[in-house]
């Protein structure tokens, strides 16, 4: 057992899988010799060599297309898109190629690959380098979508993603790279499609993802200590497959649902969660489900403005208190 950073967990997760399987290869911009824009892949080039860990030109379409061609013909590529905003540059592969080739070919074509990308706000980079775009991927049939919130989940879900036979989009949160957590020694392998209850509670369910998970936990702590409200916090972890049973089970117990989303309001993943709960657990609810999101605006760069629009522990506390009438 050791305490490591979320950043180092990325390296460890990739290294674990590359050591296990020679078919795992890794490519992206500045990922090899420079060790990544966020220094999340330092040492992989030295450990595995330039034929398996390769720097590419600034060519997002070539990166994802090459990953797909390699995956179709037998390798298990991990491709990095430096900032998740850049998915827009190569969205054809995410939207049209990876997820549809198996279906259109009536099951002939395989596409076992992982796209890992730095998602989310908090670095004051402005509207084109700070977005949370997991919902861009969640809406496409044929993809799997993962967003871990802790170092141990980074390793375990990375391993699960690499071993999965489908294309997986792996969202790392850039504001979590410096966060730390306890990680056991040895191989760690998790399961896609499983949410985790990080804090049990009886008064309300808070469903969160990635950077919003530590904020939800902090809010739950304050609600308990300051206001006697006992919240259950569910880390969704995997948007596709979606572990609806854990969420529905929690709502059946607490009778209230709050989602905390970093993505802008419209068509965020929380809307889908609320829709499922409304559809299947309406009579478990004692009040309306509430979505806590970033407003539907491009993200501003300045720190005081960015801090204002992202859901904060205080906003979560205030929203839940108001909604519960306490």
């Amino acid at each position: 057992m050791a305490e490591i950073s979320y950043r180092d967990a990325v390296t460890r997760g990739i290294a674990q899988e590359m050591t296990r399987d020679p078919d795992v290869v890794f490519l992206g911009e500045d990922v090899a010799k420079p060790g990544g824009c966020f220094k999340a892949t330092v040492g992989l080039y030295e450990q595995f060599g330039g034929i398996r860990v390769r720097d590419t030109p600034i060519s997002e379409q070539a990166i994802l297309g090459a990953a797909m061609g390699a995956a179709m013909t037998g390798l298990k590529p991990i491709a990095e898109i430096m900032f998740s905003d850049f998915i827009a540059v190569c969205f054809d592969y995410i939207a049209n190629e990876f997820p549809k080739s198996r279906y259109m070919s009536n099951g002939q074509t395989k596409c076992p690959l992982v796209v890992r990308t730095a998602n989310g706000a908090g670095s004051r980079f402005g509207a084109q380098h700070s977005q949370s775009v997991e919902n861009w991927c969640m809406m496409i049939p044929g993809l799997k979508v993962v967003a871990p919130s802790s170092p141990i989940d980074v390793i375990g879900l990375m391993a699960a993603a690499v071993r999965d036979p489908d294309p997986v989009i792996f969202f790392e949160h850039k504001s979590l790279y410096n966060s730390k957590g306890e990680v056991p020694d040895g191989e760690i392998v998790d399961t896609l499609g499983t949410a985790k209850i990080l804090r049990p509670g009886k008064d309300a369910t808070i469903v969160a993802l990635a950077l919003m998970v530590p904020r939800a936990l902090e809010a739950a702590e304050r609600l308990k200590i300051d206001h006697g409200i006992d919240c259950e916090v569910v880390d969704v972890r995997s948007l596709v497959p979606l572990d609806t049973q854990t969420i529905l089970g929690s709502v059946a117990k607490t009778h209230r649902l709050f989602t905390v989303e970093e993505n802008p309001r419209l068509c965020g993943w929380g809307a889908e969660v609320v829709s499922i709960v409304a559809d299947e657990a309406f009579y478990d609810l004692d009040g309306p489900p509430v979505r806590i999101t970033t407003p539907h605006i491009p993200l501003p760069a300045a720190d005081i403005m960015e801090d204002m629009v992202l859901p904060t522990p205080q906003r979560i506390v205030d929203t839940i208190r108001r909604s519960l009438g306490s």
Partner: protein
Amino acid sequence: MSTAKDRSPAGSGLNDDIGEQKRLALYRSQLRLREAEQRAFDLFLQNLVKGTSHLSLGQEAIAAGFAEAMVKGDLSFCTYRGHAHTLARGVPVEKVLGELMQRDNGLMRGKGGSMHLTSEEHGVMGSYAIIGAHLPIACGAAWRAQYRGDKDVSVCFFGDGTTNIGAFHEALNFAAVWKLPVVFVCENNLYMEYTPIKDVIPIPQPAADRASAYGLERILIDGNDADVVYRTAQKAFARARAGEGPSLIECLTYRHSGHSRADPAKYRPEGELEKWKQHDPVNIYRDRLKQFGVSDETIAEIDASVRKEVDDATEACKAAAPPSLDIIFTDVYADGGWAWRN
């Protein structure tokens, strides 16, 4: 590659670098593509081919020439104009017509349609309907070959219009920098869709004149002469297999029909089609066979057997059932199903 074994006996006139067996195969292949696609067009007029279709009538020498130069294990990446390239790798006519007619006997049982023909067992790694998408994908397959030391070549076909999309340039640069065993084949049929390609490029040749930007040789060939195509393909494949990197080959050709089935091609100047029909690849090659001493009987036998395959395939497809509705929900994910939640 031709070998001494498949060359005809001395005196027949066929004892050159291509050889009689390969020449007969090139003729058969081109005729088969011509007859199968002409039949697809006829079936469309009878409302039996649904959706869209993009024919390669007039461009057959490119598909046939490259496919005959490929060996088992080599991979084809095609576009939505991919019937010819798919058939040329040996996929049965019935499988292709069945997909166009949206029957259960189709290559993908109706789940892909005309623009997405795929037959991995024949090395046809998909037909891609988003312009340019498959050039980077072919690079990835070639990277796998390079990484594993496999000797197969990835061959990527596309039209002249593709040379103006970003993925073309990303893929060419990527392949050249990584020295990948991939061969890019531009079929320049003079029209990007309805607009002449010369109106939308600042250079005379859309692919050949861009090769130097990626450190590649300028290769511009007559795409209607299967011998020229075949020899060019062999040279490019040898270079790729030797680890010397990619090639970009521009083949001049002309499509006899419109861009798609919805296009009567009225934008073409008068006389242009007739001029190109004087340079029809199938006619060129039939004359070539005669010139090399192949008998009229041999040619007639090939013609008859090709027409029989197309006729039999047509009847089989007309008799085939529509696709079974229970496959609507299969193969979204690798577990065979479509579940996105528990």
